[in-house]
Structure formats: C-alpha cells, structure tokens
C-alpha cells in the first residue's frame, strides 16, 4: 500500500489531569472452514441437534488419540499468506490445561511456544488515504470448546459438544490500534480477507468470529505500555466499540485518582454498557502448558506452502487498487464493490467494454439498493450481469433516458427478459427525432398561451414547457434535445 498515506488520529480521552491515548490489541478467534474437526473426523456443521456431531475423540473417551486434519493446516497457512505473514515450517501443539464442562479433555490443544504462522500485517483504511498498519504477532491453530446453555434448567447447565474440537485460528495482533473505530475496522478487514480466502465464514452471530480485546491507556505522547485488561469473548463490532470506550474511561478514572489498574480478565455486559471483572478466570490462568505428548511436531514442506501460495486469490486491497486504476471508479465505490468478493465479480462482468463509473453507479445504487431492500444476496440477484449490461448500453447509446432506464430495471427485476426486446415491445426508446420533438414543443406552446406570456416576463419559467413535453411523451423525449430545441423556439417568440 502507498507510503504517502497518513495515519489516523488516536482517540484521546480528556481527563482532569492529562490527555489519555487508547492502546488496543486484539486476539481474534476465527473458526476454520472445513468439513471435519481439527483432530477428529466428525462434522463441523452448525445448527444440528445437540451432541450429534460428536465422536469418541471429541468426547475425550479414554484411549482416543488426536490425528491432525491436513486441510485445517492448509487453511491456516492460507490465512497466514493472505496476511503477508511468515509460515513456520516447524510448529508444535501444546496442552492448555483447565477444567470446564464444555471441555471434556480437561485441556485444549493449542500452540503456545511454536505457532504455525509468524509476523504478518493488515492495513485498515478509515477514510480515503487514512490508513493504519496493524502488525500480526502470530496465528496459531487450536481446538474450539463446546457450548454450555445456562438458561434452560434452573439448577443445571446443559452441554452441547457439537462445537468441541472444531479448528480455530487465533490471530493475535500487536497493540497497534488507537481507537474503538479502528478495532472494529480491523476485525471487519480480517473477516473480509478470510472470506476472500475461504478460510473463515466470519459469521459473528453464529460465533465463528469472536475476539478478546486488550485495552490500556497512557498519557498522550508516551511510548510506554500501561497495564491492560482483557475483555473476553466479544462477537459484535458494535459492542466491541462500546466496551473499549467504557473500559478506557474506567482506566483513566483509576489512574487519575492515583490508583493502579490491575491486569485482569473482564466481561462486557451490553445491558449495562459496562465491563466487570471475571474473578474466576484469574486463577484458571495457571494453564500449565506443556507439549502435547499425543502429537509430533508439525513439519511443513516449503513446496506445500508454495502450492498454497499459488492458489491465493486477488485480495481486497489489490482488487480495490485495480478497480480504481482499470475502471476509474472512485475510492468510495471501490470500497463498496470489494466488500464481498462476489460483488466485485458481478461488477467486473457488468463493466466489460463499458463505462466504469456508470457501471459502478448502477451496480451500487440500483442493484445493491434493490438487493438490500429485498434482503437478497448478490447470488440471488434476479438481474444477471448481462441484463444490467444491456441496460447500460441503452443509456450510453442515448436510446433510453436515465429515468426510463430505472423503469426498465424494475421491469427486468420483477419480470425478467431481454432489455432490448422489452424496450422495443413497450416503446420505451427515447424520442431523438428533432422533427417530432419540435412539433410536440409547438403543440405545448399553443396549448398554454398564458404560460407563454408569463415566460416572456420571467425566462426562468422555461422548465414548465420541458415538463409538459416530457409528460406528453411519457418521459421518452431526449431531455438534451428538448432543451436545445425549446431554447431555439422560445428565442423566436
């Protein structure tokens, strides 16, 4: 990305004694897209009946051994390459020990000392030309836990192990973010890149993208890192921003009162808008990590990495730059078009041999607007790129006006069909014949003598006649020609 770009401003909290800067780092847990789980052969399908995607490995029956899913490793490597990260050809799985009912093994298999993916980077653009570089510290592979439901029975928690053992990538950033907005933009950017790569669905509602948010504050201008608190298990960008704001202000209050912020794990309660301490987690922090004796180190052939690299698709940053360069679309339009890979693909099918700005305008305003209104995805669009392209050709050749084009779009949207045929059948073509336009104008003038008198005193009223001409032609008169000819005729009277 361009180096002349500017960094965004930090969010500053004005205290009574000092101005405070927010310092934020994220640990993002992204569920890997795969058929089977990380160390077992049961299904990863979401939303099936409780405990139906569980095998003896997932349930941690005695004697069961983990066997690593090759594709999950490939997905993590792919994600690493997409984040311009180093891939470690030697990594090791460790056991992270703790007791919780949704973790039947009594430990989570994770990677603490030798993660699969090393340093990488992500760029987030907050407004055109304002870019933050966020360094990725590492990415490791680990098992997801099951789900506990606390609200079905008054005195029991219900445990569903369907999620147990699904592969997660934990993407750990450096504390490079400086405002809640940047934190949200960072998660959305990771989500976008992983969706392009097909390595994580990024469905935050289903919990397959969640984040632990580390927040600290420091006096503006300081380079020091102050004590941080970790807000656990957030799965909404809106709540993440609210939680960061609350937490940073809480910490400023403590420092300014002469207190000390304690390093601790906290939970955000969207109901109260506050974070609170999770004391029980503190002692559980003694995870007694050690290398998992059931698994040998993971050694990766460099050729495998290169094969994966060859299959990396064009990613959003490059695609956006190319759309701007190749088709002349605006920075804003390019952002909208690359938000999902399928959107950009649709646009590129429409824009072939056509005006880029016009195509972007129609894809974004008419098509995306209509899709949003109907709650449809681009794949469900009732209008094909070819149909939309034909409409654009009709506009560009001056055969229909922009207004008629919108009617035509609605007809194709609800009835389908070939735009060219429909324009002919329903006589929607623009009247560009100067002779007939002239006679219609003369008709209008003859029918409205009083308006002609008014016009003579106030030439600004010419618009009235244009309106009447359009009305008579059902909007089909070429507006440019109408204005030209009208001006000529009015000059004569």
């Amino acid at each position, binding site marked *: 990305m361009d180096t002349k770009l500017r960094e965004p401003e930090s969010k500053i909290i004005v205290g009574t004694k000092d101005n405070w800067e927010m310092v934020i780092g994220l640990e993002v847990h992204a569920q890997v897209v*795969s*058929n*089977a789980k990380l160390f*077992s*052969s*049961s*299904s990863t399908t979401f939303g099936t*009946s*409780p*405990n*139906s*995607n*569980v*095998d*003896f*490995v997932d*349930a941690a029956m005695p004697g069961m051994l983990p*066997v*690593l*899913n*090759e*594709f*999950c*490793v490939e997905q993590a490597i792919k994600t690493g390459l997409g984040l311009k990260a180093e891939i470690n050809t030697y990594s090791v799985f460790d056991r992270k*020990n703790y*007791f*919780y*009912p949704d973790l039947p093994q009594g430990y989570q298999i994770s990677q603490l000392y030798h993660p699969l993916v090393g340093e990488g980077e992500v760029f987030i653009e907050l407004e055109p030309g304002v870019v933050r570089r966020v360094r990725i510290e590492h990415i490791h592979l680990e098992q997801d836990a099951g789900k*506990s*439901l*606390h609200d*079905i*029975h008054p*005195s*029991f*928690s*219900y*445990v*569903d*192990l369907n999620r147990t053992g699904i592969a997660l990538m934990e993407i750990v950033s450096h504390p490079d973010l400086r405002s809640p907005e940047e934190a949200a933009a960072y998660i959305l950017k990771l989500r976008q890149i992983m969706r392009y790569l097909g390595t994580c669905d990024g469905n935050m509602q289903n919990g397959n993208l969640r984040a632990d948010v580390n927040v600290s504050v420091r006096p503006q201008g300081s380079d020091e890192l102050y004590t941080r608190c970790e807000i656990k298990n957030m799965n909404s960008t809106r709540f993440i921003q609210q939680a960061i704001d609350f937490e940073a202000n809480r910490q400023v209050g403590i420092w300014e009162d002469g207190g000390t912020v304690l390093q601790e794990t906290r*939970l955000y309660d969207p109901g109260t808008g506050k974070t609170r301490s*999770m004391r*029980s987690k503190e*002692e559980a922090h*003694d995870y*007694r990590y050690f*290398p998992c004796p059931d*698994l*040998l*180190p*993971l*050694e990766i052939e460099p050729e495998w990495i290169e094969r994966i690299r060859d299959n990396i698709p064009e990613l959003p940053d490059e695609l956006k730059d190319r759309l701007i360069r190749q088709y002349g679309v605006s920075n804003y339009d390019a952002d909208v078009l690359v938000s999902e890979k399928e959107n950009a693909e649709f646009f590129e099918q429409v824009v072939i041999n056509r005006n880029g700005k016009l195509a972007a305008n129609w894809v974004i305003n008419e098509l995306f607007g209509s899709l949003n209104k109907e709650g449809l995805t681009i794949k469900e669009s009732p209008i094909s790129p070819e149909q939309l392209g034909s409409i654009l050709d009709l506009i560009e050749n001056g055969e229909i006006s922009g207004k008629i084009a919108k009617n035509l779009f609605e007809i194709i949207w609800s009835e389908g069909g070939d735009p060219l045929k429909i324009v002919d059948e329903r006589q929607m073509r623009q009247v560009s014949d100067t002779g007939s336009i002239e006679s219609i104008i003369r008709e209008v003038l003859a029918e409205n003598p009083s308006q002609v008198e008014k016009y003579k005193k106030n030439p600004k009223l010419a618009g009235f006649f244009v309106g009447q001409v359009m009305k008579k032609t059902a909007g089909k008169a070429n507006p440019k020609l109408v204005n030209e000819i009208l001006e000529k005729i009015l000059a004569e009277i």
Partner: protein
Amino acid sequence: MGLSLDEARKVAHLARIHVEERELPDIANELSVILDFMEQLNEVDIEGVEPMTSVTPMKLRLRKDKVTTGGEKDLILSNAPLPEQGFFSVPKVVE
C-alpha cells in the same frame, strides 16, 4: 526443591483433586522428592541437542478432511449420569 504447603494446595485445586488439610504435608513432601529426583536431569549438558519427540524416526501423520464419524448421540451420552434432551447436564456453572 521443596514444595510449600500453599503450592501443594494450589496444585491439588488446579487438578481438581480433593486433599484434606492434614494430608497436605505428606503430599508436599512426596512431590518434593519426585521433583528433586527429576532435578538430576539438569546436570546433563544438552547444549545443541535437538529435543527428541519420538523414540522411532517418524513424522506426524495427517488425516484427510472427510467426515466419517459422529451421529451417535445415544452412544456418546450413554455414560453420562444425567443426559437431558440430548445434552449433558452438569451442576450450574455461570460466570
């Protein structure tokens, strides 16, 4: 390397093993003896020696991304003391 009573109590708690207060001194002592025994390994110079991860020369085996197990809910739940509506049920744990 002596293990204190506090450390022994903490280790027991982390392992969720119930130990009576009067048993702690003996347990701390036993664990200390084991740790001291293992301490001897620190006398060996392992500078430049690769960690041995397997007794036989072998590589980590990987599996294909195919679903071949699961769908045996009844079997999975058959040892659970209190299965309820297809769930394991456990004494309430709420954060």
